[in-house]
């Protein structure tokens, strides 16, 4: 492609990083809303308290969820083989996530429309499911990526999946799910602690401190499992990082400890999992010392560290295959064409700064504590 000013290899690396940024963007921004949803029944007891929480995320959750929508679109555009193989392979898990996510827009919007206790309770639990279930399953999915999924390709590169939903629920994958849940609950708790007052904020501080500690413990357990119990994958043939996207031309070995090879080769990378632990610890300290901004920043950094830890462990793998390791999808053989990667890069570089600017502006406009009194002035409050 003469018109593309970057090597295919460089574009693939950029899109590996952008995929990480988009998914982290969702985990940080959308994670807030998922965490708040998961905390609603436990942090807020009275209807007024629950209204405060719903209205805390109400004005901004739609925009935050677009990180997930965009993540889906970007995987489709930049990594079509991943989009095709993972979403069809994890079919029932995806359905569970979607059914849970469907409850959120209607939960937020419909809840406040009728002043009936049962009505509101139904939507509260809908919002709980809409927050907790995706937070858990996203982690289970990442756990299964680390374990490898049972898929292969036929000679027309049609993905053939040989597992089922219950096969996804292995102990390690569930552990990864709990890391994700604890991490996002912390993210929800820090925002509640910062932007609400009274008993709600107090309960969020208690739960948030517990979940921050749980994040550390579970994350370290996960790391120990990776070091000892979970086999990693390693490419054993010579790969052409500029070659056409066809996964079937390589050979891959399954080896204990292979997921730590990148860390062994570049010890500076240990800073990334350290950021996950340190961030969670700082979130704990921030919540204890009532330093709301610190807690939010620390919890967000913890998410960055934890997501990046998984990504770096697997690099260059994106979706290893346990059934047919050579069919594993990697950065070098699962991307879209050089031209598409370039077009998408230009579009991202153009639009993403604009999105960040107006998102920041909206948060600025909506800043300040959310209280029952502040809701009263707004005719559109949920």
């Amino acid at each position, binding site marked *: 492609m003469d018109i593309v000013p970057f090597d295919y290899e460089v574009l693939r690396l950029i899109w590996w990083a952008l995929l990480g940024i988009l998914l982290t963007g969702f985990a940080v921004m959308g994670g807030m809303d998922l965490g708040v949803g998961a905390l609603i029944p436990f942090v807020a007891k009275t*209807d007024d308290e629950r209204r405060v929480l719903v*209205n805390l995320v109400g*004005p*901004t959750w*739609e*925009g935050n*969820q*677009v990180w997930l*929508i*965009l993540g*889906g*679109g970007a*995987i*489709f*555009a930049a990594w*079509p*083989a991943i*989009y*095709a*193989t*993972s*979403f069809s392979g994890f079919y029932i898990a*995806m359905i569970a996530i979607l*059914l849970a996510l*469907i*409850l959120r*827009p*209607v939960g937020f*919007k*419909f809840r*406040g*429309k*009728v*002043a009936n*206790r049962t009505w*509101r309770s139904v939507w509260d639990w809908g919002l709980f499911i809409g927050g907790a279930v995706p937070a858990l399953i996203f982690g289970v999915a990442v756990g299964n990526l680390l374990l490898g999924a049972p898929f292969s390709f036929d000679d*027309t*590169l*049609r*993905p053939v999946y040989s597992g089922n939903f219950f096969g996804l629920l292995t102990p390690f994958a569930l552990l990864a799910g709990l890391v994700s849940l604890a991490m996002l609950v912390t993210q929800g708790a820090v925002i509640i602690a910062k932007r609400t007052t009274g008993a709600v904020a107090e309960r969020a501080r208690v739960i948030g401190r517990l979940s921050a500690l749980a994040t550390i413990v579970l994350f370290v357990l996960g790391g120990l499992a990776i070091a000892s119990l979970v086999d990693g994958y390693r490419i054993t043939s010579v790969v052409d990082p500029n070659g056409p996207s*066809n996964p079937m031309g390589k050979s891959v070995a399954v080896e204990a400890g292979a997921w730590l090879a990148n860390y062994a080769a570049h010890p500076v990378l240990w800073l990334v999992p350290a950021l996950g632990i340190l961030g969670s610890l700082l979130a704990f300290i921030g919540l204890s010392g009532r330093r709301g901004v610190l807690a939010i920043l620390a919890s967000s950094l913890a998410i960055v560290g934890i997501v990046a830890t998984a990504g770096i462990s697997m690099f260059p793998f994106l979706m290893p295959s346990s059934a047919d390791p050579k069919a594993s999808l990697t950065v070098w053989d699962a991307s*879209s*064409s050089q*031209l*598409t990667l370039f077009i*998408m890069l230009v*579009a991202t570089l153009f*639009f993403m700064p604009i*999105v960040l600017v*107006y*998102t920041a502006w*909206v948060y600025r*406009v*909506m800043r300040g504590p959310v209280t029952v009194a502040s809701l*009263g*002035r*707004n*005719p*559109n*409050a949920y």
Partner: protein
Amino acid sequence: MTPVDPVVVELSRLQFAATAMYHFIFVPLTLGLSVLMAIMETVYVMTGREIWRKMTLFWGTLFGINFAMGVATGIVMEFQFGMNWSYYSHYVGDIFGAPLAIEGLMAFFLEATFIGLFFFGWDRLSKVGHLAVTWLMALGANFSALWILIANGWMQNPVGSRFNPDTMRMEITDFMAVVFNPVAQAKFVHTVSAGYVFGSVFVLGVSALYLLRGKHRELAIRSMVVAASFGLASALSVVVLGDESGYLATEHQKMKLAAMENMRETEKAPASFTVFAIPTGSHGEEFAIKIPWVLGLISTRSFTTVVPGIDELVAHAELRIRNGMQAAKALAAVRANPSDAAARQAFDASQQDLGYALLLKKYRPDVENATDAEVKQAAGDTVPDVWTLFWSFHIMAAAGFFFIAYFAYWFWQASFRRLDRRRWALKLAVIVIPLPWIAIELGWLVAEFGRQPWVVEGVLPTFYAASGLSVLDLGISLTFFVVLYTVLAIVMFWLMWRTIQHGPSDKLDLTAGEGDVSAAPAKA
């Protein structure tokens, strides 16, 4: 014989159709109401008259309830290509994924970020600031439609791309051709205009209900004036700038047109337009009423261009299948030996028909060895279901012409300030509220059902594109989607009806202070 169980293919199609049609109950109203609200708020900012803000808030409440369902049904759309159509996603993701991702970046972010401020920003922004937010939200909704229809337009007319034997998929060659695809552009104008018509019919109908009941007259009259003017312009746009201009762009669009018109044999130009037809026998006999010339004129914009009939198009498909078999043979040679230059050359010469050879996969895996009978059978498969298309198209088109007359009437009445003169007209306005929705769903049926057997015209047959899921997988997902969506849709319509019954709140004064105003807080 086929790579995916035909029952799974049918269930996957049913699920996609169901989720897409559910989604499109809500989307057109979002498109229409967002622009109507932006117009009303603009009048408010320009005149400073409180009633216009009250109108924006009232229609905004209904818009919000509807939008929530649009989001709830839309999230499934972004993921189910990969879930249910994994070979499609692999095969065309290089092209189709890009507009979908850009839709998120450019449009949905804009719409979703500003919708929060639209509802929560009234007391935090200046008048002009809030107006800008409302317009940006409406702009986001419309950009969203643009990119989705660019993606859909490519499925109808796959320009700017070619097959790469090394990766076994279609890859992009000319992005600008994809963006400025004439089919996509025609579909965009047609679809958003239809959304504006829906929004206008909705606002007019609800306002008419208020006039019939003698309530909220100030709001109803003004809303009707806006809806009548905007609706008339939109209804003209739907019909005049309709999809028709795209129908001669490609082979299968011609097939679709012939099927919509039940035109078996090619007629001398300009072809006649069939207004009404029913089958009267089992061998293709039928009773039909035709108007000379009209079809040829509207679809070709000329007196001399011929509109081909179904039989001619089937014969042509047969030629393309035979050429596609050459492509499949050459492709197999390239796959066996990637450095075989002669095979690559042979493939390049015939690759535009590779998709036609894939039609044969229904009958045998080694398509290059297909028999004459199989080729003829596959060519016959390119004819979509004529009677479904014929009636879907004709009802939709009739609705389109009806709306021009309908809005012309209301525009006339509004011009002479006598909107509430005729009670039967007001009653009619209430009754026709669901009509644009029926027309819009039928329009999608024509576009998508009419594209069969292709998922991407001439490139990939639908049966070949599905994921290899089990019937149980599909049973579970389809059941849950249908039950959940149906329950939520019933709740939504009930909430809308309740909001309409309640009418615009008198307590919308933002300086009122304490207390929930849109719904009394439950004291738990």
